[in-house]
């Protein structure tokens, strides 16, 4: 059992707990950087997709996991980011303009939906975000002149120093860089007053207010940051799917994003990453599963949402802490071995806690 002996306050502030952690993350970094040399191009593409999902997951985690505001329409932000970036690229603007512009515009949209949502709690907020997502989807479909309407359009392929950035390997490194930046920025915020204020809003709004947290400002900020990160993911997503059509950003995608954070483990960045790996790998897993299922079921077009639904239900019922929760339980088991008690994580009987008054 590794014991952390703290002698300086910086040890609580630092991103890594101790040198052992630094070693393992360093090894992971080297593995990821070397991956293009070792893995087949297909898997590099898959990893890029996981990175894109992870950026969106981190964005959603800030809002739902850390600030406690449920968003059922996050695909809308992905779409706004993707379309803004692609449209600006088509107009001839360089990458250094389109990416920040897309991120910023999506953040502004996030603030716009966040601001009126201030008085809404729990389910009402979820429904409002759902309504917002539908409206955005319709707007993207109908605004023919800019977005190409239902038909969509092909996303231009940008170049820097002669390298086409959408080729598999350069795209992999770009996605990885964006992901590392997103995680770093989010972790910085979480260890600062702003991040603590988010957690305070999730756990007790009244206490947060009495400690000086301006609820309106911080909730809007949470929405803006979350939307901004998701918009950044959207810019990469546009290149990934290479042909933008408004029905790519539908409610199924929003649910997939939520699935990611719930299944990964609410309330931690690790959860977002685990969730992204899971949802990224899901199509492959379903393909494998299809081989095992009897013919009639396997050939059904409705299979994929059904599997999403089943996974979601099973996780909520049996492992509400998600993959990261299970990972921590396993680590605890090994670190306490052989003294681990099975009842350590047993859930207590509880009554419905009314959320009509928070």
């Amino acid at each position, binding site marked *: 059992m590794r014991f952390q002996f703290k002698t300086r*306050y*910086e040890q*609580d*502030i630092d991103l890594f707990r101790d040198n052992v952690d630094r070693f393992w993350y360093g090894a992971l970094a080297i593995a990821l950087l070397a991956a293009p040399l070792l893995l087949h191009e297909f898997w590099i593409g898959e990893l890029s997709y996981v990175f894109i999902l992870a950026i969106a997951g981190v964005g959603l985690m800030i809002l739902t996991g850390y600030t406690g505001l449920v968003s059922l329409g996050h695909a809308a932000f992905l779409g706004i980011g993707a379309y803004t970036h692609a449209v600006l690229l088509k107009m001839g603007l360089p990458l250094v303009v389109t990416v920040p512009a897309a991120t910023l515009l999506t953040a502004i949209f996030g603030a716009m939906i966040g601001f009126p949502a201030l008085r809404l709690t729990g389910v009402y907020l979820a429904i409002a975000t759902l309504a917002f997502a539908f409206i955005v989807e319709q707007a993207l479909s109908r605004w023919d002149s800019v977005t190409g309407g239902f038909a969509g359009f092909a996303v231009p392929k940008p170049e820097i120093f002669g390298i086409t950035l959408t080729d598999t390997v350069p795209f992999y490194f770009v996605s990885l860089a964006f992901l590392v930046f997103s995680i770093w*920025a989010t972790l*910085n*915020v979480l*260890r*600062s*007053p*702003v*991040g*603590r*204020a988010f*957690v*305070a809003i*999730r*756990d*007790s709004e*009244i*206490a*947060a*207010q*009495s*400690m*000086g*947290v*301006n*609820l309106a400002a911080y909730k809007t*900020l949470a929405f803006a940051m979350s939307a901004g990160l998701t918009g950044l993911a959207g810019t990469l997503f546009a290149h990934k799917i290479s042909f933008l059509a408004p029905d790519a950003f539908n409610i199924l995608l929003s649910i997939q994003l939520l699935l990611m954070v719930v299944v990964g483990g609410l*309330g931690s960045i690790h959860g977002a990453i685990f969730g992204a790996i899971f949802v990224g790998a899901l199509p492959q897993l379903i393909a494998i599963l299809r081989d095992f299922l009897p013919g009639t079921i396997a050939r059904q077009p409705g299979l994929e949402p059904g599997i999403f639904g089943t996974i979601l239900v099973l996780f909520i019922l049996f492992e509400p802490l998600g993959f990261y929760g299970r990972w921590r339980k396993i680590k605890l088991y090994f670190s306490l071995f052989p003294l681990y008690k099975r009842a350590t994580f047993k859930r207590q009987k509880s009554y419905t806690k009314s959320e009509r008054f928070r």
Partner: protein
Amino acid sequence: MNLLEAKDVAVQFGGIKAVDGVSFSVSEGKVFTIIGPNGAGKTTLFNLISRIYEPSHGALYYAGSEITNVAPHKVAALGIARTFQNIELFEHATVLQNLLLGRHAHRKSSLVSEILFTPSVRRMEVEHREKVEKVIDFLDLEHYRDSLIAGLPYGVRKVVELGRALCTEPKLLLLDEPSSGLNTEETEDMAFWIHDIKNDLGITVLMVEHDMALVSEVSDEVLALNYGRVIATGTPREVQEHPEVVKAYLGT
């Protein structure tokens, strides 16, 4: 000098006058206690001072300026901190994180510098941590520093709630029933802390309390409320012997 003044404050919920024309003033550096039966309007009064409720009538003054219409989140920056009757801690955070949140009113970093976690932000974090450590030291919370609130016993939670309020470096501390749910030993500790808060830290304390022994021990001045109205005010001895207070609240 009067740190807090209430002039004819009233608030109504539907037809019920929860607080009905209450006036009092709290001198700086003193411990002022409000007593009264349940439903007398004591916590409602606190909620008015921390601006969770809007008064329907009357005015509140703090350090000379009017605070009747100040936004609720600005109260902490003015120097008013409070604890809650039913403990409003952040369940899924550690004690340390709860206390660090008390420092929020003293946040001086901008959003961009926090995203980049510049050296100045790092320095400010260490400063916040040092101030929080002083409070942990004061309240003997070292043992619980990294524990999640969700697993802590009630007595410890009450102390963390007090600590979080102290971390805001207040001039006026509102304590809502600090000894409710505490056993004799813990109540004794609370009495010593209130003494030290007044004498060593120089903080003015306004508290609501039911434990008469504690009230007599620490208070400089007492106010008795019943049905939202003031029925007596004076030293602890005077109020406890007042006939109306005895009739409404203390019994014979």
